[in-house]
């Protein structure tokens, strides 16, 4: 369990994290979201004792990180793929971390095998690709077989196979009852792997809810495509009389909210509207996130859509 209570971090006049109270529970993958400058990285650094909070508390397993005697056995973290000496081999990098926590060399070899770096363990880390460096960072996080994991953008630079591997790994770790906190800008990927999301904006908590609740926060949309463009206005008027919201998407194509695909299909049939397409689109995490961030803090670039597609 990871908990923050009234956590605040100021850098001069800038408030990076503002009176944040949130808990990250075990047995699920929790995604940490927010625009650039929202305070995600600062929050992770505060959790891991790298930065000192201005006020409030950040606890891992009920204790501040700095109070953990063998921290790698409690929480494994991968914050920055550059957090290693380029002249040191992957194995020696992990050995140094392991020694500080009383972890044996056998475990180092195990995690190298697990992340697929056993064959290059003796090579200097500076020669690794971004994907290999990510794998090495994940290996370091797994060294102590910890009950909690904190990962910042772990799939950046990984190939498709690597992304799938990380996805499976995180799901498996959560299924074992571990706490997994994952920060990522890849919302589609987070949608696939996370059960729960915590959304920050300007250092404040914007949402703390299941992924489904954020993704489905807006109405699902039914997309209608027809070659009978001339008949579309009458169909549109009928739909709006029934309380549906109709938006133009392109010539011969409209999006309808406030009704199921069956209801829209039935209405089209009643009006003799020939259909070439009738598809119900469910909300995505990206839709829900952009809607939330756009509505709550208006961080979007001028002219860019903030509220979904």
């Amino acid at each position, binding site marked *: 369990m990871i908990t923050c209570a*009234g*956590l605040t971090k100021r850098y001069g006049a800038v408030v990076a994290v503002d009176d944040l109270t949130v808990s990250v529970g075990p047995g699920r993958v929790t995604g940490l979201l927010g625009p650039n400058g929202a305070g995600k990285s600062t929050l992770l*650094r505060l959790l*891991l*004792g*790298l*930065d*000192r*909070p*201005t*006020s*409030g*508390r950040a606890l891992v397993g009920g*204790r*501040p*990180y*700095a*109070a*953990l*005697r063998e*921290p*790698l056995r409690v929480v494994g*973290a991968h*914050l*920055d793929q*550059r*957090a*290693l*000496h*380029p*002249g*040191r*081999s992957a194995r*020696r*990098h992990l*050995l*140094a*971390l392991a*020694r*500080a*926590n*009383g972890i044996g060399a056998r475990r180092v070899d195990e995690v190298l095998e697990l992340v697929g770096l056993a064959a290059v363990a003796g090579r200097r880390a500076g020669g690794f690709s971004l994907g290999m460096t990510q794998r090495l960072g994940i290996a*370091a996080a797994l060294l102590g077989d910890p009950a909690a994991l904190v990962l910042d953008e772990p799939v950046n630079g990984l190939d498709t196979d690597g992304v799938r591997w990380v996805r499976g790994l995180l799901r498996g770790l959560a299924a074992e009852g571990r706490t997994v906190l994952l920060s990522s800008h890849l919302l589609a990927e987070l949608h696939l792997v996370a059960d729960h999301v915590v959304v920050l904006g300007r250092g404040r908590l914007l949402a703390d809810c299941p992924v489904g609740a954020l993704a489905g926060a807006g109405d699902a949309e039914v997309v209608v495509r027809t070659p009978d463009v001339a008949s579309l206005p009458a169909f549109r008027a009928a739909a709006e009389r029934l309380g549906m919201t109709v938006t133009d998407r392109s010539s011969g194509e409209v999006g309808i909210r406030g009704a199921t695909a069956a209801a829209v299909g039935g209405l089209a049939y009643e009006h003799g509207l020939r259909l070439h397409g009738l598809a119900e689109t469910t909300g995505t995490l990206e839709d829900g996130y952009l809607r939330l961030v756009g509505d709550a803090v208006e961080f979007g670039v001028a002219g860019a859509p903030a509220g979904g597609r």
Partner: protein
Amino acid sequence: MRGRERGPAPATWRAAWRTLGSEWGKAWSVRSPVLCLVGAALLTVTTAAALANDFVHGIAIGERAATETLPPGQAVGPAVLLGTTVFVAFAMLPVTAEYATGSVRSTFLAQPRRRLVLAAKTTVVAGGGMLLGVVAGAASVVAVRGVLGVHAAVAGTPGGLGLKAGALLALDAVLVAGLASVLRSPVGTLAVGVTITAALLALPDRLNAWTPAGAALRLIGGDPGQYPAGHATAVALAVLVVWSASVYAFGAWLLEHRDA
């Protein structure tokens, strides 16, 4: 409520031993520290031999009397001081390289008790300094005596001067490790470190006597200068200890209280 109301877990001998093992392994798992030590040793010995050769050459060309002798310490002292300029690079590496590469975050994740981390790093470089000082100091005395031949004064044995050079470099290592924790930057630490441990010798004698550079020369060179006669070694060591302990304490305090 003030952050981090529960401070770092108390350091235990086991934690200290593990951290030392970790830092020891890190220090020798890259090439730079070994290159710095070898470079410092070669520079010290060759400089000492060159200074001795200058003395002998002075006699050969009649600048000096044929009966004149040179205490080996007077050649070894400046040579060790020059070698210190390379040794500073070795002493700062465990701290500055980690800040430069970002690996300090991995280190603090594995061991959040930062004073323990700095103590372990300092122990490694102080040990390296002691070893370098003893070996290079003794080797320099042997080289100087070999070059001087009959012009070598009796005072200054390889063992005695080697031990003094070892103590000097160990104390310099403590100072530089503390300084690196204050400045973090490799270039800044090298510049300030070399200035404090060697270049302050350029100050007038009455001032440089109370700097690490001046104390180093008086410790090894044998000329007590402003120090009380008969107590030059003790006073020189005291000056070095005060400087090293002060800078180290400030560095350790900053390391603990600053964001990583």
